[in-house]
């Protein structure tokens, strides 16, 4: 990782810059600003999970929002009853991994829009359970008074503290994800996306990788939920309906599906852009937002990072062009000898 950065000074400078912004910008922001930044971190975690499932492994999922909901409900229910935060965290990881794994099974049979709709069905079902099983979830009334935890004696009640807490989680999740996609697993996931039949014939256990992609991606969604509940301090079923899943999908695609940093950029657009637009366009901010998303996609259908890559690819192409000219003995060279 370090070596990687050293080899590219520009990337290194960029990384330091981003780190500085993430660390110090919040100090200058209002409570609301910090709340939105924390929301960005939480949504980035969820979108990163979906990026694994969709961007790397190519399995369309419209259920990511449901996993955020599962994590959030587990956290709300347990912490309101006095459990410390790590308890729902462990439960969520186990639960979302297991459910994600099961949700992967349909993907073994169907793909693309069919798979999208199977997962969409699951998301709807999860929403209905959140809403209807009042004994557990308090139904439409929701659960309020979700406590923010105390960490090493520091209360996270304060907005800035909770932001740093979310950021720390984002860094942990991103680190794990980076390691995962850079391991041979990452290559296998990509192979699964690009040509499952060929991957299978090369010994890639597509079943297991598909299920893993779902399970790990879903778990990240759950972890985001664990942070979401204490962040908002209240949950009801509505935020975990289909629009959340759609919005997470939007983050992945707009940021750049299959690019490691895509979800962070996508979440920037989906979470922070509308808030920013509010101040300039007032009531019309959603119109402006939708318009911007469309323009962005029209301009670069492969997302922001897809566009960046195309830019940086130029230099590489030029190098490759040269390499070609220098390759293999040619008729000319032969006849000259």
């Amino acid at each position, binding site marked *: 990782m370090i070596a990687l950065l050293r080899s590219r000074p520009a990337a290194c400078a960029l990384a330091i810059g981003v780190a500085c912004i993430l660390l110090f910008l919040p100090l200058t922001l209002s409570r609301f600003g910090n709340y939105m930044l924390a929301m960005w971190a939480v949504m980035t975690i969820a979108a990163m999970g979906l990026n694994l499932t969709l961007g790397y492994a190519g399995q369309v999922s419209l259920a990511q929002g449901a996993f955020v909901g599962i994590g959030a409900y587990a956290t709300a229910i347990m912490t309101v009853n006095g459990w410390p935060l790590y308890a729902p965290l462990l439960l969520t990881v186990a639960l979302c991994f297991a459910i994600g794994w099961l949700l992967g099974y*349909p993907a073994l*049979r169907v793909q693309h829009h069919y798979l999208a*709709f*199977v997962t969409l*069905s699951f998301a709807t079902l999860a929403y209905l359970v959140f809403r209807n099983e009042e004994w557990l979830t308090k139904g439409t009334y929701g659960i309020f008074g979700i406590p923010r935890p105390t960490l090493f004696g520091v209360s996270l009640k304060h907005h800035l503290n909770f932001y740093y807490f979310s950021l720390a989680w984002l860094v942990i999740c991103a680190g794990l994800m980076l390691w995962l996609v850079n391991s041979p697993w990452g290559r296998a996931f990509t192979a699964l996306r690009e040509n499952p039949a060929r991957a299978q014939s090369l010994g890639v256990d597509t079943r297991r990788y598909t299920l893993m992609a779902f399970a790990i991606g879903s778990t990240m969604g759950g972890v985001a939920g664990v942070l979401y509940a204490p962040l908002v301090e209240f949950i009801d079923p509505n935020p975990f309906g289909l629009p959340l899943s759609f919005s997470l999908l939007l983050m992945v695609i707009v940021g750049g*599906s299959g690019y490691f940093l895509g979800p962070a950029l996508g979440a920037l657009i989906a979470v922070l852009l509308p808030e920013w637009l509010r101040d300039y366009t007032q009531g019309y901010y*959603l119109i402006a937002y939708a318009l911007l998303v469309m323009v962005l*996609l029209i301009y670069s259908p492969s997302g922001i990072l897809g566009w960046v890559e195309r830019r940086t690819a130029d230099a590489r192409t030029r190098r490759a062009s040269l390499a070609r000219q220098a390759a293999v003995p040619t008729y000319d060279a032969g006849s000259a000898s």
Partner: protein
Amino acid sequence: MSTFSTLIVGGLATGAIYAVVAIGFALLWQASQTINFAQGEFVMLPAFFALIAMGMGAPYWLAALVTIGMSVVILGAMFKQMLVDPMIKHGVLPMAIATMALAIFMKESVKDLYSAEAYPFPSLVPDRNLAILGANISLQHIGIIVTAIGAIIGLTLLLERTSIGRQMQATAQNPTVARLLGIPVERMILLTFVINAVLVSIASLLVTPIYLAKFSSGETLGLAAFIAAIIGGFNQLRGAIIGGFLLGVVDNLAAAYISTQYRSAVPLFILIAVILFRPHGIAGRKEERTV
């Protein structure tokens, strides 16, 4: 017993609405391999064209013509030119997301620029009821069923029996080769979207008297129609009507005999079952040989 037949007939009637919209989905897929998540809003919007026209004093028939014309221009040509063209080469997902954004755009625009209220809408077919099998069914619904069946027959004939139709399919299945054979790819795609626009505007005129003209009325409709299209078979137009009917009836029976709280889950279970056991839908055909 009369309850039961009420449910069935009522379900068929609702199903026909889903079917009319689902045909558009299937058509777009078959003829351009695109998925339009704003299809529900495409049905919502023309009603407002009509309301505006009528608000300016146009009689119904004129408003209807204006509506179709506006739809062809805005939902057909402009949609294709501005959103579909740049994205069609980049696979289904960016396009799907862009149409989701378009859905938000259309909803919010209508809401902010026209009104957030629901409006009654005049009906093409008189608002009268007919007793069938001991159940009351409105003439409006019969109109919709007839339209759905008519649209399916017409479009199926177009796609399967005419050279234009096959050129449209060819364009969708392999645009590069289509271009190379001299098929006017651009025109075929445009044609697809224009047909879809006509279809949604007619659907809008038929459905809005029942659904009411409201900025948000496309949401559930779009989703239901999409599910109907998948259940029926995405790559077969007639699948849309089968899927629509099935969805409508099942929805009603589920609400009546299972749980009202979980009613919206039942069609989804059917969807899952159909997808898992007949992945290409009830009427659909397998897409192609893979190895």
